[in-house]
């Protein structure tokens, strides 16, 4: 039965490639990337062999603990374990509980993250190859540690799924996750400043982790190398106990979930007409009102809004701390581009609901303009603030015209380019109601290509205004700044109008093809 489940997973994976070759390309690219990561990590471990045993043990325990913690937490916040084999679909089959659990668990190794983890963790033997006993122990413990990773991921997600039945919780949690992710860089800067104190801390941390589920398996070969076989055996037993306990707990949680599937709590709160009473009652206004509603209710858009307060923090910490406060001048243009870019996947986000637009015969130009309008209502004030505040606070008021002009140029150009891009290119995005972080397997390559192209086009179009602004900054000639500002606003406005028109015309011509594309991605 376990073998059947594994075969099923392989079959499903293979069929998804047949359905969309792009997915195959994506998986191959991801595979190559993973191969690169593996070879780097593995060769690093191969070099470790010359160091003393306590050092090897410390490094590996810390690394494995980090990987295990990642497996336990990341799927949780990103609400994604690979649910190609969704346990709920097996309820009606007479499969014994342990077999189902083991089968589902092992199927996690079929797929790039699982395979990568297995290879890297079992690769630990390279660091311990000096002696046969440690080598064998490292190999065994590596495989067990990889198992533990997968179990923990399943355990945390299954347990949390019980708690997080409500849609609202998922929506909010989905957005909140971005904050720590965005702040990771700045945090690292701060942490690395205090790295000196850390060198004393690390060995002790490794010692403690070696007795927790996170690092228990990784610590076993170190005990053997130190000659304390009894400790090694004890630790291995403890590790197996952790593993068994985790499997048992997951299996129980899984069963509870399957026996009494928790129906998603529905919110009973009544909503009024909202944005539909604000925007004019025309097709364009209706599209804007709908888009606006989604900006606040759909976590996939909410992610863009959360970026707004975070971006200045990130810039401040990554550049400002080191005396480069003037880097804050980039805030306006950067936010402008980001906000403009936010609607570049609009049709993909609509998914098959886009059908209503096609059936209603909405003119492309109205569709485009409505989406731009909604984004501008949020983006315009934000971009203006971000372009006015930094020069004023830095006491460089003479930079204001260029700052405002370039930022607006970035926003307007971004909106224009996005209007064209979203009328032509669709790609697999998280479906409505899914976590903003869930990427369909293999979608990465197409997204990367389209987004890179879109960004490059924006960059080229932004160059004249940005160039003049830079010239003012370098030469101190304020006339250049005024010129840059005016050029920026003019270019931006022209490109926005052109973008809406061209995008609208493309949409009119290609609405059925767009519809076909979102049907495939569904």
């Amino acid at each position, binding site marked *: 039965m376990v073998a059947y489940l594994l075969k099923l997973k392989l079959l499903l994976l293979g069929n998804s490639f047949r359905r969309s070759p792009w997915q195959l390309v994506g998986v191959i690219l991801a595979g190559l990337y993973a191969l690169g990561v593996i070879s780097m990590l593995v060769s690093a471990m191969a070099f470790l062999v010359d160091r003393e045993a306590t050092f090897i043990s410390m490094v590996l325990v810390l690394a494995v603990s980090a990987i295990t913690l990642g497996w336990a937490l990341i799927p949780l916040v990103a609400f994604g374990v690979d649910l190609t084999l969704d346990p709920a679909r097996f309820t009606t089959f007479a499969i014994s509980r342990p077999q189902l659990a083991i089968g589902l668990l092992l199927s996690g190794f079929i797929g790039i993250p699982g395979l990568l983890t297995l290879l890297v963790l079992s690769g630990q033997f390279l660091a311990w190859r000096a002696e046969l006993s440690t080598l064998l122990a490292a190999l065994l413990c590596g495989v067990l540690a990889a198992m533990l990773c997968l179990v923990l991921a399943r355990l945390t997600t299954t347990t949390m799924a019980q708690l997080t039945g409500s*849609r609202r919780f998922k929506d909010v949690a989905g957005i909140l996750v971005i904050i720590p992710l965005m702040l990771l860089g700045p945090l690292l800067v701060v942490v690395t400043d205090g790295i000196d104190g850390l060198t004393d801390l690390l060995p002790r941390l490794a010692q403690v982790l070696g007795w927790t589920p996170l690092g228990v398996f990784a610590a076993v070969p170190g005990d053997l190398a130190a000659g304390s076989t009894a400790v090694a055996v004890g630790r291995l037993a403890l590790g197996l106990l952790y593993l068994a306990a985790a499997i048992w707990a997951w299996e129980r949680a899984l069963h509870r979930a399957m026996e009494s599937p928790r129906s998603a709590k*529905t*919110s*009973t*709160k*009544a*909503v*009024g*007409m*909202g944005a*539909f009473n604000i925007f004019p*009652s*025309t*097709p364009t*206004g*209706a*599209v804007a*009102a*709908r888009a606006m*509603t*989604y900006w606040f*209710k*759909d976590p996939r858009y909410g992610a863009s809004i959360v970026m707004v307060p975070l971006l200045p923090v990130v810039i401040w910490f990554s550049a400002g701390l080191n005396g480069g406060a003037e880097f804050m001048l980039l805030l306006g243009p950067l936010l402008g581009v980001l906000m403009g870019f936010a609607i570049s996947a609009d049709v993909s986000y*609509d*998914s*098959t*609901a886009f*059908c*209503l*637009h*096609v*059936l*209603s*015969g*909405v*003119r492309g130009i109205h569709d485009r303009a409505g989406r731009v309008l909604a984004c501008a209502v949020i983006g315009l004030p934000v971009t203006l603030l971000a372009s006015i505040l930094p020069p004023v606070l830095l006491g460089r008021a003479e930079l204001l015209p260029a700052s405002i002009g370039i930022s607006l140029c970035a926003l307007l150009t971004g909106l224009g380019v996005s209007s064209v891009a979203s009328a032509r290119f669709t790609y697999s995005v998280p479906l*409505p*109601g899914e976590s903003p972080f869930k990427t369909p397997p293999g979608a990465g390559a197409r997204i990367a290509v389209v987004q890179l192209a879109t960004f490059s086009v924006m960059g080229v179009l932004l160059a004249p205004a940005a160039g003049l602004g830079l010239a003012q900054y370098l030469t101190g000639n304020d006339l250049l700044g005024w010129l840059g500002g005016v050029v920026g606003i003019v270019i931006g406005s022209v490109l926005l109008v052109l973008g809406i028109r061209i995008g609208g015309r493309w949409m009119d011509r290609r*609405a*059925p*093809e767009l*519809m*076909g594309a979102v*049907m495939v991605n*569904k």
Partner: protein
Amino acid sequence: MSNSYLDPGAPALSIRELGKRFGAKVAVNGISLDVPTGSFFGLVGPNGAGKTTTLSMATGLMRPDAGQIWVHGIDVWEQPLKAKAALGVLADGVRLFDRLSGRQLVTYAGLLRGMDRATVDERTEDLLRVLDLEDAGSKLVVDYSAGMTKKIALATALIHSPRLLVLDEPFEAVDPVSAANIRGILADYVAHGGTVIVSSHVMDLVQRMCSHVAVIANGNLLAAGSVDEVRAGMSLEDRFVDLVGGRGNNEGLSWLHTS
């Protein structure tokens, strides 16, 4: 909505030599079909027969590989905007903008078609009332049951008072009371000059409800005409199975006999 540009003598829907293939599979194989104005037209066929593909092409959602389609004399692919104004469509297997409330969604559908707000508001309330969605109107569509979702989708198809209604599987997951209500609405609509095309698997329903029927299998049109012509004295279900073929041999599963 003014429909003065429509050709009064033309059939509500006219399909000629319509063809579509997906890769090597021929989904629709040169279908020609007329749906008379004022008819209640059933489109039946086994799973994968090409019903949804045909209807998608007829409503401008999917570009045909070959053939032509007219809605009240307007070529759907030459003058899509004009044709779409006369069409109300309930598509199967597509999402709705479900982060809107039911009321917002129906209003949205009306405004997208360029209707004025007062008319949209009035009709939205009428539709919600008739479809028994008044209380649910202020809740998000994402929280609706499957049947309620079907009903709100139907409301978005009716809001602009189309001449021709195309409904793909309208009764799926709808409870019997709501289904009876919807049938009543549709019968009334047909009695006052509208034309309805429904696709369905439920032969009994089609036989009772429809005036005309067409049978499609494997992308081919097997029969079309008034229900009485097509069923030729048999029940529609028996006639359908005869036409489509493939009635299973019930004696095959002797091991299923438990006594």
